[in-house]
């Protein structure tokens, strides 16, 4: 058995490894850049002015702190434990993604970079990146799989309104992983002036660490809010996992609270028994992709396979390396929820709380409804409501057989 560490919050090591995972598996052209980024991030961490600017933008531009909300009618409908939400869907741009983008664009400007690129799947990270680029007047290029461009037109238009150029990627399967490949190809050819804003807690070190740190505002706020409101910590944290940044943001500040259990919820798509799912941790194997070692959906030869989820934001064949480590350490439990279960939870939240959630947190809510009823009614579950569902109404309508 692996030796238990004194703290679950001191990863990664100085090589960017979370146990066996993470690292810097990038082409030599990018290595000096990645090392530069790490140096600059360390300097920013030590600079109170950087933190002050980050905090100020989160408060006045993003609208933080986001509320901590007791979902009374949902709790009543489900029965069992109290269900609370961290309302990150109320952020500017409608999801947690903006927290990270603010942090990274400040780093980009600190490094003197003048051009921003990013990848996006459903378009939420693309919109958040386009937003901060508009806010700071930097040119922005978003790579998006051609398949996703076709099925996420509203977000494509949002990005264009914000002044970003959206490049449809036709290589491979034309989805998120191919958009990320294209982002890396752009970066390698434009290293002198370009900053790559990665959207989740994955990629080469230091991205998994810095994205987690920027997103940890979620858990830091939630911990303080919960203590202030109830005088205690929650019994269970629940969050959906695609790349895993909203979950890490919530979990990380609680990792050393031994009585707080944690559950990450992957997308089971049509079910874990087939290959139409996006559950890298539960249905994948360790491997190397996009700069880090982590669990991947892949075949026996190490070829990457295509995930499926009703939620385009969870539809990625990898997972942030810190989750891979937390899984192996047993600190966080992981489960998966099917498209149908997520769709039910989506509708349940709409009707009980008047909140239309994104399909990503609908997965977390589905897991919550299953587990809450097994817990006593004085127990507290805190789930991350990491995005709102406006972007998903077309997908949901189609699934429900409604013509719009």
């Amino acid at each position: 058995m692996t030796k238990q560490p004194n703290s679950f919050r001191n990863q990664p090591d100085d090589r960017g490894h979370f146990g066996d995972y993470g690292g810097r598996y990038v082409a030599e052209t990018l290595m000096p850049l990645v090392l530069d980024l790490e140096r600059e991030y360390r300097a920013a961490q030590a600079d109170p002015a950087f933190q002050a600017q980050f905090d100020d933008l989160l408060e006045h531009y993003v609208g933080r702190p986001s509320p901590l909300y007791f979902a009374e009618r949902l709790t009543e409908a489900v029965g069992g434990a109290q269900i609370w939400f961290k309302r990150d869907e109320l952020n500017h741009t409608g999801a947690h993604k903006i927290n990270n983008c603010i942090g990274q664009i400040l780093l980009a400007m600190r490094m003197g970079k003048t051009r921003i690129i990013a990848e996006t799947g459903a378009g939420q990270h693309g919109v958040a990146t386009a937003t901060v680029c508009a806010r700071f007047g930097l040119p922005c290029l978003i790579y998006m799989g051609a398949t996703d461009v076709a099925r996420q037109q509203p977000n494509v238009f949002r990005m264009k309104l914000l002044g970003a150029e959206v490049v449809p990627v036709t290589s491979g399967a034309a989805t998120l992983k191919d958009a990320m490949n294209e982002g890396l190809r752009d970066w390698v050819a434009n290293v002198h002036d370009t900053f790559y804003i990665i959207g989740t807690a994955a990629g080469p070190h230091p991205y998994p660490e810095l994205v987690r740190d920027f997103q940890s505002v979620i858990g830091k706020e939630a911990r303080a809010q919960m203590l202030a409101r109830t005088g205690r910590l929650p019994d269970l944290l629940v969050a959906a996992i695609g790349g895993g940044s909203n979950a890490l943001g919530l979990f990380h500040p609680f990792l050393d609270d031994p009585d707080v259990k944690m559950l990450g919820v992957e997308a089971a798509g049509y079910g874990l028994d087939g290959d139409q799912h996006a559950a890298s941790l539960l249905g994948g194997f360790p491997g190397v992709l996009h700069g880090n070692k982590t669990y991947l959906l892949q075949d026996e030869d190490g070829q990457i396979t295509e995930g499926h989820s009703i939620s385009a934001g969870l539809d990625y064949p990898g997972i942030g390396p810190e989750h891979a480590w937390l899984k192996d350490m047993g600190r966080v439990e992981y489960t998966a929820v099917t498209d149908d279960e997520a769709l039910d939870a989506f509708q349940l939240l709409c009707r009980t709380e008047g909140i239309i959630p994104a399909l990503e947190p609908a997965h977390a809510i589905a897991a919550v409804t299953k587990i809450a009823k097994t817990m006593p009614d004085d127990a507290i579950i805190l789930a991350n409501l990491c995005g709102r569902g406006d972007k998903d109404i077309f997908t949901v309508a189609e699934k429900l057989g409604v013509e719009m």
Partner: protein
Amino acid sequence: MTRLSTAFSAPALVCFITAGDGDTAVNLDALVAGGADVIELGMPFTDPMADGPAIQEANLRSLGAGTTTADVFSIAAAFRQRHPDVPLVLMGYANPMVRRGPEWFADQCAKAGVDGVICVDIPPEEDDALGPQLRAAGIAPIRLATPTTDAKRLPHVLEGSGGFLYYVSVAGITGKQQAAQASIAEAVARLKAATDLPVAVGFGVRTPEQAAAIAQVADGVVVGSALVELVGKHGADAPLALKELTSALAAAVHSARQG
């Protein structure tokens, strides 16, 4: 002397094609017949992040035809039988190489008669993932140096590397623009001052003229996308076209320092 060091005793032409894209055995024979001194055999991968459109498409064609890792090693082993003296290196990405464990991969390389391995996304910082196992099996881990590899970093890149040093002449992906000759000459001089390994230059080299100019200063010239495009374009007739281009490139490289 190893097969690789012998090949680089005079300016050498390194020819790349993707395994499983077309009739690879016949295409490899055409490269050798045309005068290729070193064969670089690409292992197909679903996500070839450092490659431009030509090699991306070759990867997709190969995987679409059902190429497996076992097929790649069969192609390599059969090549070694037919061409006992021509060095063969595998080029690819980390995941297919480490999938069954680095020991397994190194062992398969040794059994197939592979001389070296170029892994795009295992930089020296992650050498543990494959380097020790390759070295233990007598396979050269061939590293890449790029325009962004500065003098401070270069020793780190060279440590533990073998076979030859592959200089990526442009910061970018394969098959695109070529670097200015002056910058190549300067970079190669800088690299050769730091290592006894042969230095081969690649990325964006398509014509005999470019190859001849590089061979004036470097120990090797790598051509990939231009050959892979011929495989894609000519299908079963590719051997003729491959031999023709390789002959012209080889003549240019081999005569570069004469007269």
